[in-house]
């Protein structure tokens, strides 16, 4: 179903800077080394969300992070895969598998979203709370809350929306099999303002951007003088020893600059600082420093 994993993947990378801190340490296997080629993921009978791609050698694997629409999604997948009861999650085991997946993602150079790491931290926290003996001071009160409770609630809620998403997907599929009539003449005088407030904002920003560009060009036009143009040409040619004339002219932002550029070339030739070369008839003209 997911045609463009870019959404989630993009959302993920946005927070990539924050991505460092949580280094899972408690009770998991030694972190795999960085360039350890094929990362083995335990995805036998891969879920539709996971795409395995074999490379030239047949060893490469690719996990499309984007297909897991988030840490809750990944967790749900793992719970299903491990065939555990969502109401009684063996938290240590699931944490372990979860962490290995997140590690795998990072090794596969998928910049794991901070959300995946936040979830990792939460899992570890729940795990450690489950290891604590029951608080004696709280005895007598109603049963102490299961540390997993909040997570389970979120997972169940998330699952509902996942189901809703797939309902929407099938609806859209059916709807794509229904066609309206072809456009007819009278459509041209079309109804209502078909734009929303965000269109206004977008258009406004485009205008501002356009204006900024214009202003910058104006400033340049006003400021570039013959002296500056000569300076620019000298710098360019001195650093390389020679300069393709076409490249120099292409840098001119407008007609006036082009004229100045031309004049400054003539000026340098006149003062015999440079000479013009042409390697072949009708070939590129090259400026070279006179040694």
């Amino acid at each position, binding site marked *: 179903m997911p045609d463009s*994993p870019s959404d989630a993947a993009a959302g993920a990378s946005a927070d990539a800077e924050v991505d460092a801190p949580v280094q899972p340490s408690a009770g998991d296997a030694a972190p795999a080394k960085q360039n350890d080629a094929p990362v083995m993921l335990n995805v036998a009978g891969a879920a539709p*969300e996971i795409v395995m791609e074999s490379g030239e050698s047949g060893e490469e694997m690719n996990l499309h992070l984007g297909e897991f629409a988030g840490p809750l999604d990944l967790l749900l997948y793992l719970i299903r895969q491990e065939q555990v009861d969502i109401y009684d999650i063996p938290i240590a085991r699931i944490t372990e598998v979860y962490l290995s997946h997140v590690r795998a993602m990072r090794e596969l150079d998928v910049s794991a979203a901070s959300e995946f790491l936040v979830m990792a931290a939460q899992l570890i926290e729940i795990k450690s709370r489950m290891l604590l003996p029951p608080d004696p001071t709280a005895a007598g009160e109603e049963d102490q809350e299961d540390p997993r409770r909040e997570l389970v609630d979120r997972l169940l809620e998330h699952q509902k*929306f996942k189901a809703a998403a797939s309902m929407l997907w099938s609806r*859209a599929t059916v*709807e794509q099999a229904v*066609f309206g009539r072809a456009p*007819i003449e009278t459509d041209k005088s079309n*109804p209502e303002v078909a734009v*929303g407030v965000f269109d206004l904002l977008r258009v406004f920003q485009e205008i501002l951007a356009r204006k900024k560009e214009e202003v910058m060009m104006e400033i340049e036009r006003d400021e570039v003088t013959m002296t500056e143009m000569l300076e620019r040409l000298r710098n360019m040619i001195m650093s390389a020893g020679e300069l393709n004339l076409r490249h120099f002219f292409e840098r001119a932002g407008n007609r006036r600059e082009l004229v100045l550029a031309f004049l400054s070339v003539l000026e340098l030739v006149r003062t015999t600082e440079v000479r013009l070369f042409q390697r072949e008839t009708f070939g590129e003209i090259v400026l070279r420093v006179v040694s």
Partner: protein
Amino acid sequence: MEVDAAEETERDVVVIHDADAEDRAEERSVGDESAGDGAGLDGEVAPGGDARSMAELMSVIEALVFVSEEPLTAKTLAEVLGEERGWVEVAAQELAKEFNERNGGLMMREVAGGWQIATRVEYHEQVRAYLKSRPSAKLSLAALETLAVIAYKQPVTVPEILEIRGVQSSSAIKTLLEKRLIVAKGRKEVVGRPMLYGTSKEFLLQFGLRDLSELPNIEDFEDLAGGSS
């Protein structure tokens, strides 16, 4: 939507007036329904003084629904035809039924709050082959999930969506805005006054929904969800 006075009064009056008429019309349509069955309709005369027969009303509705670029509401039909809305609704229903029974290449259905004539699903292969069209790109999983959250929780803010999905959803929201499936619905009166989002008419259209109430109850997904794990 709130409107305050001034230049909009004229338009406003019309709307308020209509709302009343709608109520009356709806009452009436309930009563009419039993009578409005089968072939006997042809001879009936629409109420409201107009001498248009039911068959005539159905025909003119067919023409207008065809011409309209968007699904045509019973309200607009009633206004244009100068008929009572309830009566128009009966006629539209009857027309849709006729389409259905004819079982031809077309259907008439209610979508996004209005009536629409469209091709029947059965012929999508041939239609697609003729138009050389491909099914348009589907939404990504992330965008679909975000859309589901917005559809069921609207109006909803970005932080609230994050809370439910457990993942940043801003790029999905941007995609949905670009595809016009969602729209801004004002701001929430909390710190920072975040924008509220809701689904659009385009959403109803693209997902073939008459209105939001046609969405299955979100709680109904629970059993399903629980069962699969």
